[in-house]
């Protein structure tokens, strides 16, 4: 008989990425993932079989993060720009500069917008799942996502009507990447 908890390991990478995007610090993120794993394991009976395990794990992770942050507001502040760092290491095509700018812009969003964009834009969560994960209304998530996108577009001057030349290169690279992901 297979243990449903064996599936936990499949979400480790995504949990860690989410943790890094929240904490912006790898060491803190790893502690957060560790705490989340222990909680998920010991409360596994509360997981509804067949529902979205990633969403469930992200909810625990997020709650853990915010209660931790309330406890020690100071310590968690040393953001080290991981998001930008991990990407600039990639020996990429022409999309690289664009990506770095993007990450710098992303860092400027507020926590709520970043989180909503990570869940919906990057994590493929539905608005409903993201709303449940964050404990807010669906409309709230939608407006955070919209405002976050608008801010990013503004910071990167993406709102102009003229096409951004680099776009197609970036898009092509992403599509290529996804197809053998």
């Amino acid at each position: 008989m297979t243990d449903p908890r064996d599936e936990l390991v499949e979400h480790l990478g995504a949990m860690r990425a989410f943790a890094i995007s929240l904490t912006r610090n790898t060491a803190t993120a790893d502690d957060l993932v560790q705490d989340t794993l222990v909680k998920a394991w010991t409360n596994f009976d509360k997981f509804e079989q067949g529902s979205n395990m990633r969403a469930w794990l992200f909810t625990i992770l997020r709650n853990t993060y915010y209660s931790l942050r309330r406890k020690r507001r100071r310590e968690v502040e040393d953001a080290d720009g991981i998001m930008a760092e991990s990407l600039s290491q990639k020996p990429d095509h022409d999309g690289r500069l664009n990506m770095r700018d993007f990450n710098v812009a992303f860092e400027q969003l507020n926590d709520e917008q970043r989180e909503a964009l990570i869940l919906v834009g990057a994590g493929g969560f539905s608005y409903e799942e993201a709303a449940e994960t964050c404990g807010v209304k669906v409309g709230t998530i939608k407006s955070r996502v919209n405002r976050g996108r608008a801010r990013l577009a503004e910071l990167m001057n993406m709102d102009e009507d003229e096409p951004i030349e680099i776009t197609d290169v970036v898009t092509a690279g992403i599509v290529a990447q996804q197809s053998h992901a």
Partner: protein
Amino acid sequence: MPKKRSDRVEREIDQNLKRAFDALASEPLPDRFTSLLDQLKAKETSDNASASDDQEGRND
């Protein structure tokens, strides 16, 4: 004033996000996570074996 952003801009933002997130998510994981899972599993097995054992409940 901000009229509807083009779908292209929106798509590009999401693709950038996704790319950034996936890059992070596919980084090598620290061993501590898998060994933690192993420990949890092992602990449970031994707990079940001696069911009367004091439960080391964490007081969270």
